């Protein structure tokens, strides 16, 4: 099937030629450039499909397939293996960008022709940059004829998990999605104006990207928890930070966009946040692939590729900054907001989100800055991020609970604060009672975090109660769901970090260890054989008064490469996880085992799902409005 891979390369070259054509040719009318861009996008998507076919047909003459797949790999993991390495993942990036651009090209009727054309051109420039990158430095279609009878080097076992089927594509949908708001922002700056129709079209794109990114991050956290065997759900690894930074900018963006239609003052924020979100997406891509920061997630490191991405980032952002500096003043009216209004509250929240993003950025890059200045090496890890972001998240929760109930344009602060004070008291009472009864400990930081999180929930419930008898719009439910989700996630994070328990023990067969009133018994060891691995599985029986469960953690050795992996098993419900992971065997029959009790950990991902749901509802609402407008 060598022919398939060469078709893949040819399609990329066709796309490259078409995009160059679009940029060089004079653009008198939008029809031709739009058509050329559409064909280029289809080319890229077909090229990705060619690569997938190479994987599914085990074409090991393509070196990328050789490195990331094997004959024994199940077909669904072969599909994922396409993005298992750097070259394929960039091709995925491009395919998603092509797909989004293609869809957008059919929405041009909603935009002014000059505006729409410029948006497509910006996207074409980005796509061209990526095509050149792939063709010249990261070609997934290079052939090799050295290893003839190989069965492939196999996909990294850590990635052979259902979470991996969805996590990277979701993240890429999010990252790449921010190219659209970026293109809108650049077009607005270029033309010196942005009309309400364009803003209305921008909203679903910003929302869609945010939903995908939220879901991608949630999935990633859940996957790491299950796969890595230490019961951790977030590590402040540079690659994780690379996904959180666009998320923070993106959250601020979607709030800014919501207001921009009503209040022209926010347009400048929208533009700036759109540019920032995409810049952070690109920077994230750079950090992961250049070797500039050590990370467990990083792809095979190549400074040459890193240089290309960095230059691309610098060119795009310098263009954006120069446009912003010279033309942004055309776009907004500097009308001050009333200090106690929903707009000003959202402004405060945007500022807080932006500050959080800056803190994460600083912490991630600081070791590099210190090293670059020749001052040695330091590490900036979880303790730094947790300690600096915790107070800001508290402020965010405080504002969130308040702003939900403040009216647009202007509101009476005395009345609102009285009401808020009452709600805060209720929240405090609930937090106190729950902490005392359930956990028997009253740590001040935990109490504070819980009070504020509960306050958001109480405030949302009050708001719902006020509207009980009036119709509630889809956008209201979207807001409700997303904010409750955030509060639940914070509760989950706080409780599990404070009250989680770990036991690292050596266990013999039939031995029982007690973890927080649960008796965990090592029942029996079984040999294990899977499609591309072998190993040991141990049956543990968990018992408590009125409850029983069985878990089967495994220790797997993957046949290709002899990689050893711990596959933990979890007994879970909504309120707690009992997590059992195997360490190493000791002697003939004993094993070192790690037992974790994790209270409320599922709420973290439940919150993530609710946030995604909220975003999804808002997105559906925009689609409904968009089609509604078209029909009538």
């Amino acid at each position, binding site marked *: 099937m060598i022919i398939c891979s060469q078709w893949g390369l040819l399609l990329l070259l066709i796309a490259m030629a078409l995009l160059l054509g679009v940029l060089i040719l004079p653009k008198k009318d939008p029809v031709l450039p739009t058509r050329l861009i559409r064909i280029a996008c289809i080319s890229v998507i077909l090229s990705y499909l060619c690569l997938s076919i190479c994987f599914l047909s085990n074409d090991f003459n393509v070196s990328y397939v050789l490195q990331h797949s094997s004959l024994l790999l199940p077909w669904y993991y072969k599909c994922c293996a396409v993005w298992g390495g750097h070259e394929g993942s960039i091709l995925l990036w491009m395919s998603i960008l092509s797909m989004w651009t293609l869809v957008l090209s059919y929405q041009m009727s909603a935009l002014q022709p000059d505006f729409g054309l410029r948006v497509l051109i910006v996207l074409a420039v980005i796509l061209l940059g990526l095509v050149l990158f792939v063709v010249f430095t990261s070609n997934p279609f290079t052939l090799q004829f050295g290893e003839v009878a190989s069965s492939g080097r196999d996909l990294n076992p850590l990635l052979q998990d259902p979470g991996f089927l969805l996590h990277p594509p979701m993240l890429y949908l999010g990252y790449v999605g921010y190219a659209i708001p970026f293109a809108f922002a650049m077009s607005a700056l270029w033309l010196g104006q942005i009309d309400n129709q364009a803003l209305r079209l921008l909203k679903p794109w910003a929302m869609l990207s945010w939903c995908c990114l939220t879901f991608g991050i949630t999935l990633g956290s859940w996957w790491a928890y299950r796969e890595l065997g230490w019961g951790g759900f977030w590590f402040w690894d540079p690659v994780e930070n690379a996904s959180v930074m666009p998320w923070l900018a993106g959250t601020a963006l979607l709030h800014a966009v919501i207001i921009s239609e009503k209040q022209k003052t926010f347009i400048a924020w929208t533009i700036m946040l759109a540019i920032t979100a995409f810049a952070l997406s690109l920077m994230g891509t750079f950090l992961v692939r250049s070797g500039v920061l050590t990370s467990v997630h990083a792809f095979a490191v190549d400074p040459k590729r890193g240089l290309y991405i960095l230059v691309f980032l610098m060119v795009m952002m310098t263009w954006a900054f120069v446009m912003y500096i010279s033309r942004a003043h055309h776009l907004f009216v500097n009308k001050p907001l*009333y*200090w106690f209004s929903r707009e000003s509250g959202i402004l405060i929240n945007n500022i807080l989100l932006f500050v959080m993003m800056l803190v994460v950025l600083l912490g991630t890059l*600081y070791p590099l800055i210190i090293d670059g200045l020749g001052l040695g*090496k330091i*590490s900036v890890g979880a303790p730094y991020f947790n300690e600096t972001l915790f107070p800001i998240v508290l402020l965010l929760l405080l504002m969130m609970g308040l702003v939900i109930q403040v009216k647009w344009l202007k509101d009476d602060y005395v009345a609102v604060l009285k009401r808020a004070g009452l709600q805060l008291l209720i929240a405090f009472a609930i937090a106190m009672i729950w902490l005392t009864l359930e956990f028997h400990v009253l740590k001040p930081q935990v109490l504070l975090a819980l009070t504020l999180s509960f306050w958001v929930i109480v405030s949302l419930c009050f708001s719902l109660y006020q509207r009980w008898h009036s119709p509630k719009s889809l956008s209201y439910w979207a807001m409700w769901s997303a904010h409750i989700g955030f509060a639940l996630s914070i509760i989950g994070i706080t409780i599990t970090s404070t009250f989680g328990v770990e036991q690292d023990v050596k266990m013999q067969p039939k031995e*029982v260890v007690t973890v927080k009133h649960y008796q965990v018994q090592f029942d029996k060891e079984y040999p294990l054989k899977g499609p591309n691995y072998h190993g040991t599985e141990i049956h543990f029986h968990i018992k408590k008064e009125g409850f029983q469960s069985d878990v089967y953690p495994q220790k797997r050795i993957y046949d290709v490469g002899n990689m050893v992996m711990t596959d933990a098993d979890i007994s879970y419900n909504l309120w707690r996880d009992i997590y059992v992971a195997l360490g190493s065997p000791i002697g003939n029959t004993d094993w070192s085992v790690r037992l974790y009790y994790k209270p409320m950990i599922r709420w973290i991902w439940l919150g993530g799902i609710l946030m995604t749901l909220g975003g999804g509802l808002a997105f559906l609402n925009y689609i409904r409005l968009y089609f509604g407008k078209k029909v009538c």
Partner: protein
Amino acid sequence: MSRRILTFCIFFIYTSCYAEVKYPFSSKTQEAQFTHLITELRCMVCHHQNLAESEAPLALDMKQVIYQKVSAGESDSEIRTFLTDRYGDVILFKPPFKIMTWFLWLAPVLFIFFGIAVFYRHVRVEK
């Protein structure tokens, strides 16, 4: 009823004693100190893990040394200094507050102040 409780207690004590905890401590404070230290220290072999998570031989050695020091009653800063003397500041996941990291630790406060300034510029008080 009391017989059941007694049996349960004996069973509880029996099983708790029977399981060999890797790092047994005589007091809860020491246990907390140990846990807190090993989560803040970086594994020098697997750079993305802390000592608590790492199974590398060097990490196990370090945990053993830290265990001995905590049991002997040494303070957090003594143990940290012991390790940074040998492995450098890199081993600390929480950057120490020195001239080199002033900006790192103070920047969040600085950013908040900038934020307040931005807010002031965009907002009016009179109706």
